[in-house]
């Protein structure tokens, strides 16, 4: 299994490799700046473990794990 955004622990950084998922999900992620080569950093998890808070291109995003699993990252 490829590593995805879900596997990041708070404080971890990585680089986006590839985005999977259906058209709507992919387009939404791309529009929010999650593209191949973008560096991402996980800041924290929500109190119940989902969604996760990450930073990409200078902004903070909250992403549900059900969406984050489509973002493959470098291991």
């Amino acid at each position: 299994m490829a590593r995805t955004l879900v596997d990041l622990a708070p404080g971890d950084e990585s680089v986006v490799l590839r985005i999977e998922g259906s058209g709507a999900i992919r387009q939404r992620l791309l529009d929010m700046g999650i593209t191949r080569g973008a560096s991402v950093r996980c800041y924290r998890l929500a109190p119940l473990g989902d969604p996760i808070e990450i930073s990409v291109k200078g902004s903070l995003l909250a992403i549900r794990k059900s969406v984050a699993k489509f973002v493959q990252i470098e291991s």
Partner: protein
Amino acid sequence: MPPTESSPRHLRAAIAGNPNSGKTSLFNALTGSYHAVGNYPGVTVERREGYARGNGCIFRVVDLPGTYSLTAYSAEEEVARNFVIEQRPDVVVDVVDAANLERNLYLAVQIIEMEAPLVVALNMIDVARRRRLDIDVDKLSSLLGVPVVATQAHRGVGTRELLAACAQVAADPERHIPKQIRYGHHVDEQVGHLAGLISHDEGLRGRFRPRWLAVKLIEKDSAVADQVASLAADPGAIRAAADHAIHSIETHFGEHSESVIAEGRHGFAAGVVRECLRLPTVPLRTRTDRIDSVTCHRVGGPIILVCVVYGLFVSVFKVADEWSWLFGKSPTEWMEWAFERLAESCSSLQARAPLLHSLLTDGIIGGVGGVMAFVPLILVMFAFVAVLEDTGYVARVAFVMDRLLKVFGLQGKSILAMIVSGGLGGGGCAVPGVMATRTLREEKDRLVTMLVAPLMNCGAKMPVYLMLIAAFFPRIQARILFVVWLMSWIVALGAAWVLRKAVVRGEQTPFVMELPPYHVPTLRGVLMHTWERTWAYVRKAGTVILAVSVIMWFLMYFPRVDASPFEERIAVAQAELGGEELVAVIQAIRNDQATAQLRNSVAGRLGSGLVPVSQWAGFDWRTNISLIGGFAAKELVVGTFGVAYSMGNVDPDATDSLSNRLATDPQWSRVKAFALIMFVMVYAPCMATQVTIWRESGSVRWALFSTAYATLLGFALAVLVYQGGLALGLGQ
């Protein structure tokens, strides 16, 4: 032609930009205090319009919805995009957050691609400078090929220069067509080929910019593909060419074509930023991250959320209702007082024109006044929510609560709407609750939230509960109220879950939400937000609710009963009795007359006609009529009960006598009372809420649906309680 004082040029401007880019502040700074607020046709996206003057021109400014992109996947983005393509404004202003340039330029690139006459407002330049981001404005302008003006919207800095640039671009649009975006050799070749084909198509030529259409087709944009299919002279050829281009790009890059295009745009934006910005070495977003580490903390986050929600609740319902020490009466009481005086001023009509008097006082003043009494409450609620929105905290609420509400097909922000609607028990109002769903951008989540928020216990349902509980559960009042509160959440979340599975189905909008940097909200921004939304509410009370109030009055007033038997009884009493006894007897006869009148009215006949069905839940004709009144406003239930039981119109604040009457009535029992409580909790949202759902969902169908499903659900629940109670032998 140079503009002159006597004949200002009229120009149409549209403001685009990311959410949280200060777009609304800029709109306010440009247009001053007068705005027209409405919705875009057919969708629930808020549309704001105003006028700006500058450079000898009058600009009609439309505030487009805040978006990150211009795809067909969300209503906001489609609205913004279609406005630019179809309305062809003379100039588009893209508001760009200078402190977050790269991400914001992604949208600018898409507007450039549409070949719209564009001016970039480099907003929040002060914040960027504080973070030591040094942006070369001239270089940015030349790299994008459009004028760039630095602004500080919340202080009104740069608006004059911005309007001057707009006037210039609008005066000579052909000279200000921005540069083409390059996606690299391979993609550009495919785009060029497809664009060539489009520019020769009779149906598409002149309607769309060929290059933009080509890029959109390669991006697999479904709305654009549909338009091409219906408008193109030869849709087959264009479809085939687009498929060929997509295939060629995907095999070349080993990647989805839309990813390639998005990467191209981000790459262009990143390149621009690299050239015109010297990045500082200090780490980004220090302050926001520090605050987040508290507000989104595993333990601290939920605790702070509870405090904020409690604060919202206290300020809305306690401040607006109980600030009597300051004004002598609470603001709500002042409103009620004003409408009572208004009703009194009509009293001279009572003898001369009883019909007109009843229409004015019971129908119009009663109906509209009941709704207007909420205005102080709603004003405070909107102010509080505006502060929460403008600081950026609403996004954190969503972050903290999302997982819990996701189980029921809702999302984090739904919690705000449900609490405003009365989710804490003891008060609330579904009208501002439904309006609070505006903070939800995901359409399906928003709709479901809107449909279940009215199931919370609003302030108007409380008198009914209190009256029944005092009558039948005098020793365990608090416990019953707690059960009722618990039931409201169970029913609402359960209903959300079912609605999500059965009615509002389909794929969930992928939940990716920006957590914007924290801002200190400006007073002007908060007041503007508050005023606009409150005014929308007031306007509605004056129109739709007025009309429905008159209809409800009609249903309860006609047909009239013959008054002569009652007059005869009064005459007999007057002959036999005197003093206080006479007054009491006349009052009793008048109450009997009111009961007979109510029973004979259209609403009364309806109530009697429904008995064969309603008896399953234990409701007799008196209960039915009261509940019919509750369709208009839940405040009417107790009052109508009073009339139905010949007690005159009972004040919802003083229900003791009605409670005693019911408690001693052999027809009534605890089971019946609890079944009625459950029904009142769930059944049809009041008229004001229905109208709000209509407005906010953009469709009268959803308002009717919410009425129908809630009434059926409420009835099913009441039947379950009543029949279950009887079966368990609790009926006596």
